């Protein structure tokens, strides 16, 4: 108990510092929100293995580490290293955040359609605090999630994206979070608010990159509001450094006839937890949640999905794939809730895992709560090893054991990679994967 109090104290003092700021961002509404969230975090505390939603993911190491809040400036940043992460060949609009703070010089946008806003969230809330009451924390609830509560209480900055009614943003908007670990462990609470009004269209790419080694903690929350008939594609490519902790919530809120997708790629990090929540709160919504996780070493990756069908004729597709090597551990929980009114729901969930080592493991489970009677709901999970027959077939054609193995692993992943629509992102993920595979360089041009 004593320990728990201390764990929370670290964040209380960070909160006190924010509270004491003479000119708080976001006005009184944000202060109220932060205060409530902090109080909720104090009540909840960090989850333990006894918590149903955290049964397989032990965050004690996160809770016990004395993270410092990152401070703006004072870091030597290698701009070239960052530029390499920005898809320089592509014409993406981008916001870059270094240790959680907006880096204007590294950010750029060009020819955004009229009325579209792509900006720092802190600056936006400063200019127009009304966004807080209208949208902030309206979608991602902090009541049952300690990390979301903590983020809500301590958020410093993140992206704000607003697309007005009927507007199509052709080029993806890239949000790049770069963390440079220092001597002492730091924590960053990125907070993104994405609002796509009626019949608008946009693509959002979040990248998390760690430059250098060291312990740090990213605790991110992204809220995406998808208006009636809007189409939003979201990607999160997580490549934190190997000692980093990454906890992130992606919250999709969908109105009538909207189409939303999120594709979560987990490559880096030590302990990683992704909460991906979608609320289909209008008739005829379409929601696709894809994921690919490739932990090795001692990495732990937990994907926790929650799809809530509130209205009739909703479609949801969840397709998560894992490739686990060495002592890596994977967790997949796919909760599907179909409310009483949500007749004609069509929900499908698959989680397929490939274990490359005897010491790798996966816990996977669906959780279906179906209160409507006229629904189609299917789920399937597999945990398997490389197909020995396929291995032999490839080798019998002269392909070496290493190359055959890499080929099969890559083939397993490529189904998920193929679903990444923006080509630069797709080839980036493909490239990273190939670099991890023995003789991967020879697999170029496979897909």
């Amino acid at each position, binding site marked *: 108990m004593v320990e728990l109090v201390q764990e929370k104290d670290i964040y209380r003092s960070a909160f006190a510092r924010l509270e004491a700021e003479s000119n708080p961002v976001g006005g009184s509404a944000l202060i109220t929100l932060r205060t409530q969230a902090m109080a909720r975090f104090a009540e909840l505390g960090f989850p333990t293995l006894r918590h149903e939603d955290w049964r397989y993911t032990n965050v004690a190491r996160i809770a016990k580490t004395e993270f410092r809040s990152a401070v703006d400036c004072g870091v030597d940043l290698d701009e070239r290293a960052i530029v390499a992460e920005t898809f320089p060949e592509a014409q993406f609009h981008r916001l870059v955040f270094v240790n959680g703070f907006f880096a204007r010089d590294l950010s750029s946008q060009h020819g955004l359609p009229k009325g579209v806003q792509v900006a720092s969230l802190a600056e936006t809330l400063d200019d127009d605090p009304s966004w807080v009451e209208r949208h902030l924390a309206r979608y991602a609830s902090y009541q049952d999630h300690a990390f979301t509560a903590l983020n809500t209480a301590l958020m410093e900055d993140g992206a704000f994206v607003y697309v007005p009614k009927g507007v199509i943003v052709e080029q993806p908007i890239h949000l790049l979070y770069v963390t440079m670990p220092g001597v002492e462990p730091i924590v960053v609470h990125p907070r993104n608010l994405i609002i796509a009004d009626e019949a608008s269209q946009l693509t959002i790419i979040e990248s998390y990159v760690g430059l250098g080694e060291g312990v740090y903690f990213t605790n991110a929350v992204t809220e995406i509001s998808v208006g009636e008939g809007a189409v939003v594609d979201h990607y999160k490519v997580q490549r934190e450094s190997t000692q980093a902790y990454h906890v992130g919530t992606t919250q999709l809120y969908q109105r009538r006839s909207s189409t939303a997708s999120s594709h979560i790629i987990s490559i880096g990090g030590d302990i990683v937890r992704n909460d991906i929540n979608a609320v289909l709160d209008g008739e005829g919504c379409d929601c696709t949640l894809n994921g690919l996780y490739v932990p090795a070493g001692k990495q732990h990756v937990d994907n926790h999905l929650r799809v809530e069908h509130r209205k009739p004729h909703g479609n949801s597709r969840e397709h998560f794939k894992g490739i686990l090597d060495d002592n890596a551990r994977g967790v997949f929980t796919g909760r599907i809730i179909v409310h009483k009114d949500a007749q004609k729901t069509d929900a499908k969930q698959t989680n397929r895992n490939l274990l490359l080592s005897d010491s790798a493991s996966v816990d996977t489970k669906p959780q279906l709560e179906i209160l409507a009677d006229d629904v189609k709901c299917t789920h399937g999970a597999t945990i398997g090893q490389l197909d020995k027959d396929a291995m*032999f*077939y490839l*080798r*019998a*054609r002269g392909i*070496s054991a290493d190359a055959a193995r890499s080929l099969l692993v890559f*083939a397993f992943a490529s189904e998920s990679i193929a679903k990444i629509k923006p080509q630069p992102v797709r080839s980036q993920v493909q490239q990273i994967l190939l670099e991890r595979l023995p003789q991967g360089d020879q697999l170029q041009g*496979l*897909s």
Partner: protein
Amino acid sequence: MLQIRNLHVNVQGHKILKGLTLTINAGEVHSMMGPNGSGKSTLAQVLAGRDTYEVTEGEVFFEGRNLLELEPDERARAGVFLAFQYPVEIPGVGTAYFLRAAVNALRKHRGEEELDAVDFLEFVKEKMRLVDMDEQLLKRSVNEGFSGGEKKRGEIFQMAVLEPKFAILDETDSGLDIDALKIVADGVNSMRRTDRAFLVITHYQRLLNYIVPDFVHVLVDGRIVKSGGKELAMELEERGYAWADQSIRHAAAAS
């Protein structure tokens, strides 16, 4: 080219091959016939290097090298090819990519330059015509969703592309209609050369009307019970495997 001496093979503790001896010279076509379960595929898989089969006795030499000491991919690169009885489906791996990887592994081994995607395509298109394969199949995943006939023709196509020294065809004729059978046979016949040998495993005599073997062997219960020329296949067709088995026993008893 290939010498098999007194080969004994176990599968999961069961004795499947019980002392098989066979010599195949360059330029020859040998046919191995036998009832289901006699050990034909076991022989084919052991020669290709499948590790689920345990060789308990005997030896196999290929061009003077101890074949049993080589990894499956080393055997393939040395020139051994197996047309699988049941070709494996490999989702996510494109046929063109797979074959190019195989061809280049071979070329690299021989010290030849590797083929790029364009050169490779030109090279395989010619081979596809040989077995009347639809070029669209190159774009699909290896064997995935192929019909039975497409899979079998695909094996012959791969053989044509890889140009092995010694090819084993494990029941490539099974399940083929007469037209497909002729295509397969034509493919094999066009590849017959004085420096290449074939072991054609089949359950039925029918294929041997089109691929005329130099030697026919009858495998029953893990042993070659009878060997002869192409006329043995005809005789078997008339009299059945029991006859071959018994005639060898009678011969053994008489001596």
